[in-house]
């Protein structure tokens, strides 16, 4: 009996592309894409089901299609794309709750893969240099994406307790970057003049979009379970990244960056959020030892290599050599 994979959040680019690559994978028989709105691009061999994960219809889809693997990637980072913070929160938290409830009721489900993010670790001056998977945030987030992700992870842990027979993989991905990614961090780097926080130079880690797709597929098809940080090797300082991007930066005091951020948000130029300002002040590093040893996943791009690829898509010729892509 082959695998039937259900992918949530296929209307967004990363979700759609993952569903397509999964459909092309010979070890996967069927891929069912679920979202509220139909995906805009080519979905290849994916069968799309228009369903809202916020209501119990989803459990019918899982039962009817005999789904054994669920890949949940519809946790969204910005209110802009969802149409407001309330909708975003509902999609993220209520959607996850409904989906997990449906999975719990479906005896056929064997694997659950959740795309989480390193944002759960927060960013503060008390952070250790590198977070490992068993560390938590030093300050619990009180709002926004970080809080949503924290709650989502909490529900997923609860589900893993209640259904020990289901292998649950939680992938905490670093900031995904690449030529096609539209996210707060890429729109930040796409600004012609980039505001930075005066006197701080955060450490950044990136994950290339291709590596994200690869790790999701790897997690959906192997037998391993657990929580894993996923990021490219090495770190980049923000100042270094901006130099490599040949962008001008304007150092502003922290509060002014926040103000600029909300202006940019209302002008729909970039999506700034409070947790992003914390990130751009203190930075974050995650330890990826477990990703290599336990999950046995080796990203193709280093942090610097992923950034170089992103920079090339903005028309910046890479002048900095070395350590880009692993062969």
């Amino acid at each position, binding site marked *: 009996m082959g695998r039937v994979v259900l992918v949530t959040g296929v209307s967004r680019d990363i979700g759609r592309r993952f569903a397509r690559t999964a459909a092309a994978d010979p070890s996967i028989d069927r891929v069912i894409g679920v979202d509220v709105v139909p995906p805009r691009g080519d979905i290849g061999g994916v069968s799309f089901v228009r369903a809202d994960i916020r209501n119990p219809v989803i459990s019918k889809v899982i039962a009817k299609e005999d789904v054994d693997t669920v890949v949940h990637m519809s946790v969204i980072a910005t209110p802009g794309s969802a149409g407001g913070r309330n909708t975003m929160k509902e999609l993220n938290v209520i959607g996850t709750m409904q989906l997990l409830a449906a999975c719990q009721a479906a005896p056929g489900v064997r694997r659950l893969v959740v795309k989480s993010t390193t944002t759960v670790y927060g960013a503060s001056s008390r952070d250790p240099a590198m977070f490992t998977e068993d560390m938590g945030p030093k300050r619990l987030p009180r709002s926004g994406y970080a809080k949503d992700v924290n709650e989502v992870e909490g529900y997923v842990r609860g589900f893993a307790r209640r259904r020990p027979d289901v292998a649950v993989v939680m992938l905490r991905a670093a900031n995904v970057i690449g030529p096609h990614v539209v996210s707060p961090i890429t729109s930040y780097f796409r600004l012609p003049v980039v505001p930075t926080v005066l006197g701080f130079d955060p450490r950044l880690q990136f994950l290339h979009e291709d590596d994200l797709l690869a790790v999701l597929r790897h997690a959906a098809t192997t037998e391993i379970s657990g929580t894993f940080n996923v990021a490219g090797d090495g770190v980049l300082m923000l100042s*270094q990244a901006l130099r490599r991007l040949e962008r001008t930066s304007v150092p502003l005091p922290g509060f002014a960056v926040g103000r600029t951020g909300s202006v940019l948000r209302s002008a729909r130029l970039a999506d700034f959020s409070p947790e992003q300002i914390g990130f751009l002040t203190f930075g974050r590093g995650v330890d990826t030892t477990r990703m290599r040893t336990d999950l046995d996943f080796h990203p193709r791009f280093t942090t610097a290599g992923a950034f170089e690829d992103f920079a090339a898509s903005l028309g910046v010729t890479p002048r900095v050599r070395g*350590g880009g892509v692993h062969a």
Partner: protein
Amino acid sequence: MPDSRPGPEPANEPEQGADVIPIGTSGRPGRGSGRARPSESARNLAGPRRTPRSKPPASPGPPPADAPVEPVETPVEPSPEPPAATSSTSAADRDPTAGIPAGDWLDAFKQAAMELFDDDWERRLAEFLAFLRRRLEGGYAVDEYGFDQEMTERFFLAALRPIAEKWFRIEVRGVENIPAEGGALIVSNHSGTVPVDGLMTMAVVHDRTGRFLRPLAADLIFRLPAVSSLARRSGATLACSEDAERMLRGGELVGVWPEGFKGIGKPFSERYKLQRFGRGGFVSAALRTGVPIVPLSVVGAEEIYPLVGNLPSLARLLGVPYIPITPLFPWLGPLGLVPLPSKWLVEFGEPIRTDAYDPAEAEDPMLVFNVTDQVRETIQQTLYALLRERGPVFG
């Protein structure tokens, strides 16, 4: 300028063989060399290079009319034929828009480079330009803690070195106690109102052993703008057990000041009295990773900013541990920030081995307290011995 006539070239202008041409017009006024022949360095650019002279010309003073213009070291045979070029200088050639010939610019540049980088200037200059380019393009690498080795070595430690050597005249003992490789934990007393002792220890350790000391810093450091990015760049990380153990496992030489703010912020009257050594977290980190603990005693840092007063309420308002008042600060304004030039003695004690213990014994609080006390007592006794030895504070 005695030789003020814009006259023709001296007859014995060497045609070839001279390597060094002084800046500009050989000391004569007027622009351009007035020669039809391209300058020496312009010719050098085309032909095979000669090795550059090690010494720049001694003085730009005007040479005697019949002496060779260039004070070269190799004997130069005067040219057999009379210089034909000099008379061909026309008014058009003297046009100021023609400016200084590129060759002369190159010469001047070469001279300046030699002044700046001496003998090996070509390689050094190339290195420097490559360095500049790397910085501007962001082509350097940092480690996972944000440590920028190149920047630290070239700027940060280079700036600290003269302070350590000339201002504080630091005398170092027991450098051989620092392991040449592998993880080790240097534990030091902390004093001086501002953590200058940490910076000096970093400079001393790198100068004497070539290793980089990775300091564990309080979280206040990472909250302050500018200080935070400088701290990460120079190799510091947060003083927490996760980072300490990670660095020690990675084989780094880690520096810790367990007294923390209680140490640097203590009043001058309590100088050289060690405060509580935290909760012994540094000992458990060393026990878990099995690295040696090197006790370090620093004498001299107490006197650089004698803390005679404190503004606790203002400090609480600003969220800092204390606001110092020293005999010079804030009365003299920025001048009060200049540390007093006390004489420093720095002694690295014999390493305390922890690899004999089982890593699980890090959970034994009694053992941790005992080792903490041992380290603290060693440092305190060494401090007393060094103080007796030092003599006058500013001597």
